[in-house]
C-alpha cells in the first residue's frame, strides 16, 4: 500500500486562535476515510487547511502528500498535485459559466488541451451520471443553484478533475434522501473508475456512510482526533452520540464540548 497523505502533529490557527491541536492522520492510496464530529469540532478547518486556504495558518506540524511536503504550497499548486476539495458551501461566480470554469480548471490541472467538442462530450457524460441537466453547463457557477444542485456540482467537478485525494466537506448536508443517494452513487462510481484515489469524507451524520463505505472512521472533537476505528465506529456514534467520546477524553482543563471555532 502506498502512502497518500500523512499528517503529523498539525497545529492550525485562524486569527491567532488555535483550532487544530496536534492532529495526526495517515491514509493510503485508494482508501476511504470518514471524518465525523460535531459542528465546531474543527472538521472544516481541517479540510480548508489541507487545501491551503490562506486564512488558516499552520503554526506547527507537517502535511505530506504523495511523499512531498505541501505546507507552503498555494491552493492551485496543491490542486495540480492531485488534491481536491468539495466545498461545504460552494461559492457562486457570476458571469463565469460552469463549462468555461471546468475547461480552464481541467487545462490547469491536466495541462492538456482537449478540443472543445471532446471536452463537452466528457462533461455531458458526467452530467448524465449525476442527473444534472446539460443546460447547467452554460449557467453561471452556483448562481441561483439549489443546495442539492450545488452539492452535485461539486461532485461533478471532482469527476471531471479526477484528483488523487478528494476531500469532501459534508457533501450530504442539506440533501434529501434522493439527492443523497445520487451524490453517494456518483462518489462510488467515481471511486470505481479511479480506484487509486483516496477519499476523505467529512460528515456530520452516519447516513451517507450507508452508501459510501469507509475503510476508517475518525472522530473529531475540540480540534483533534479523539477516536479512530473501522466502519462500526460510525454506527456506534449513531446510536450513542458523541458524548461518550468526549467524556473519556483526558481532562486537561477542558470543560465539556462547547462548540468553537468554525
Amino acid at each position, binding site marked *: 500500500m502506498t502512502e497518500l497523505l500523512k499528517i503529523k502533529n498539525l497545529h492550525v490557527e485562524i486569527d491567532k486562535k488555535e483550532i487544530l491541536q496536534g492532529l495526526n492522520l495517515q491514509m493510503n492510496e485508494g482508501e476511504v476515510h470518514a471524518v465525523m464530529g460535531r459542528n465546531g469540532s474543527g472538521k472544516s478547518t481541517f479540510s480548508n487547511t489541507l487545501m491551503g486556504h*490562506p486564512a488558516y495558518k499552520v503554526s506547527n506540524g507537517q502535511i505530506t502528500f504523495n511523499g512531498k511536503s505541501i505546507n507552503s504550497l498555494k491552493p*492551485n499548486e496543491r*490542486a495540480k498535485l492531485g488534491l481536491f476539495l468539495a*466545498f461545504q458551501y460552494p*461559492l457562486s461566480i457570476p458571469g*463565469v459559466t460552469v463549462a468555461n470554469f471546468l475547461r480552464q*480548471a481541467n487545462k*490547469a490541472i491536466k495541462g492538456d488541451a482537449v478540443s472543445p467538442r471532446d471536452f463537452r462530450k466528457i462533461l455531458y457524460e458526467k452530467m448524465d451520471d449525476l442527473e444534472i441537466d446539460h443546460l447547467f453547463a452554460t449557467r*453561471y457557477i452556483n448562481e441561483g443553484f439549489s443546495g442539492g444542485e450545488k452539492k452535485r456540482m461539486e461532485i461533478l467537478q471532482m469527476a471531471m478533475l479526477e484528483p488523487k485525494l478528494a476531500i469532501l466537506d459534508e457533501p450530504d448536508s442539506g440533501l434529501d434522501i434522493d439527492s443523497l443517494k445520487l451524490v453517494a452513487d456518483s462518489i462510488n462510481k467515481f471511486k470505481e473508475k479511479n480506484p487509486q484515489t483516496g477519499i476523505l469524507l467529512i460528515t456530520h451524520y452516519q447516513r451517507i456512510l450507508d452508501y459510501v463505505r469507509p475503510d476508517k472512521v475518525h472522530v473529531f472533537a475540540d480540534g483533534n482526533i479523539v477516536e479512530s476505528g473501522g466502519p462500526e465506529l460510525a454506527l456506534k456514534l449513531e446510536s450513542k452520540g458523541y458524548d461518550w467520546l468526549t467524556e473519556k477524553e483526558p481532562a486537561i482543563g477542558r470543560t465539556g464540548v462547547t462548540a468553537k471555532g468554525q
Partner: protein
Amino acid sequence: MAMELNQEYQYGFHDPENYAFKSGRGLTKELVVSISKMKKEPAWMTEFRLRSLEIFFSKPMPKWGDTKLLNEIDFENIFYYVKPMEKRGKTWEDVPKEIKNTFDRLGIPEAERKFLAGVSAQYESEVIYHSLREDLEKLGVLFFDMDSGLRDHPEIVKKYFATIIPPEDNKFAALNSAVWSGGSFIYIPPNTQVEIPLQAYFRINTENMGQFERTLIIADEGSSVHYIEGCTAPTYSSDSLHSAVVELIALKNAKIRYTTIQNWSKNVYNLVTKRAVAHEGAVVEWLDGNMGSKLTMKYPSIYLIGERAHGEVVSVALASGSDQHQDAGAKIIHAAKNTTSVIISKSISRNGGRASYRGLIKVHKGATGVKSTIKCDALMLDEHSRSDTYPTMEIDEKGVQIEHEATVSKIEDEKLFYLMSRGISEEQAKLMIVNGFMEVFVKELPMEYAVELNRLIEIEMEGAIG
C-alpha cells in the same frame, strides 16, 4: 512608427504627418468660417457653427464632474481641424499607405471583409475611407460620413440635425457644433432590417488633436440597425480632446442599438454627448464600453417620448491607474405612458483608478405605467482605487415601478480560494472574476468584439497582483 510609450496600450503608435490641411492651434471665428468654407457647406450650417461658437465662448466650464481635470484642458493648445487627405477613399488602395497600415494594425479592413455590413474610418477630422454593402445600398440604406450626408441629403439632415442635442445643451456640445467634422450619417428606410452591424472607427494621430465627429442616425418606422464604434489614439505626453455629439432617432417601432468600445490612450479627454429619442414602440439600446481615455464624461440618454417605447443603457468602465477617471452613466426620461427602461452599469477600478456612475431617471407627469430597473455594480480591486455613485430620480407620476440596486464589492478571498482550489492561478482567477463581472455587457457584443474586449481586459489586468 514611433516607439510605444506605454507597453500596456498597444495602439499607442503614431504616423508621420503628411496632411492636406492642418489648422493652427486654438479656436477663432475665422477658423470656423474656413472649416465651413473648405467643406462647401450651405449658409445655414455656417451660421449654425458661428452661433454655436458664441455659445461655447459664453458658457462657463461645467461645475460638476471632475472639475480639476476639466479645468486642465488648454483650449488654446488644441488643433481643431486636420484634414489628412484631399479626397475620401472608395477602396483601401486610395488611402495613403501609412494611414492604411495603421488601420491594418487596428484590424479594420479584415473586420470589414469578415463580418460588417458597412465601414467608416475616420482619421483626425475626416472620414478617409467608407463603404457600404451593395445590397443595403439598393434597399435605400444611407450610410455616409456626416459631411457627405449634409451635401447629398440636406433635406434629411436639416430636418433632424441638432434637434436632439442643440448647441445650448452644454459647453462641449456647443464646441462640437462649432467645429464638427466627420462622424456618421445613417438613415434606415421604413421596415428595413440591417441584420449585421455597421461600424465606424475613429483614430486620432496628431498630438493635441481635437476630434469632433458628429453622428446622426435615423431609423425610420419599423426598421432596425446596429451601429458599432471603436476608437484609439497614440500615447503622447500631452493631451488631446475628443468631443463628439451623437443623435439617434428611432421612429415608431424602430430599433437602434449603438455599441461603443472606447479605448483612447490615456492622454485623451473624452467628453461626449449622446442622446436618443424613442417614438411609439421604439427600442433604443446604448452599449457603452469605456476602457481608455484620461477623463471620460459621458451619459448616454434616451428620451422615451412615444407610448411603450423601451430604452436600455448597459455600460462598463474600467478605470486603471491614478491617471484615469471614468465618469459615466445614463439618463432616461420617461415622457410617455407604459415606457420601460433598464440601466445596467458595471465599473471596475484598480491601481488608483477612479470610476463614477452618474445617472438620472425622470418620469414626467402623465407617464403612467412606467417601469424602470437600475443596477449599478462597482468592483474595486485594491484600496487605492475609488468608486462613486451619483444617482438622481425625478418622479412626477404616481404608481411607477422603479427598482434600484447598487453594490460595491471587491474580489473576495473565498472566491479566489474556490477557483484556486481547482488549479487556477491567482492571476487567472482574478481575471475570471473580472470577466464574469463584465459578462452582462460582453455577451451582448458580436463575437469578434467580445474576444477583443476580453483581450483588452486581460492586457489591463496583467501584473494585477502585488
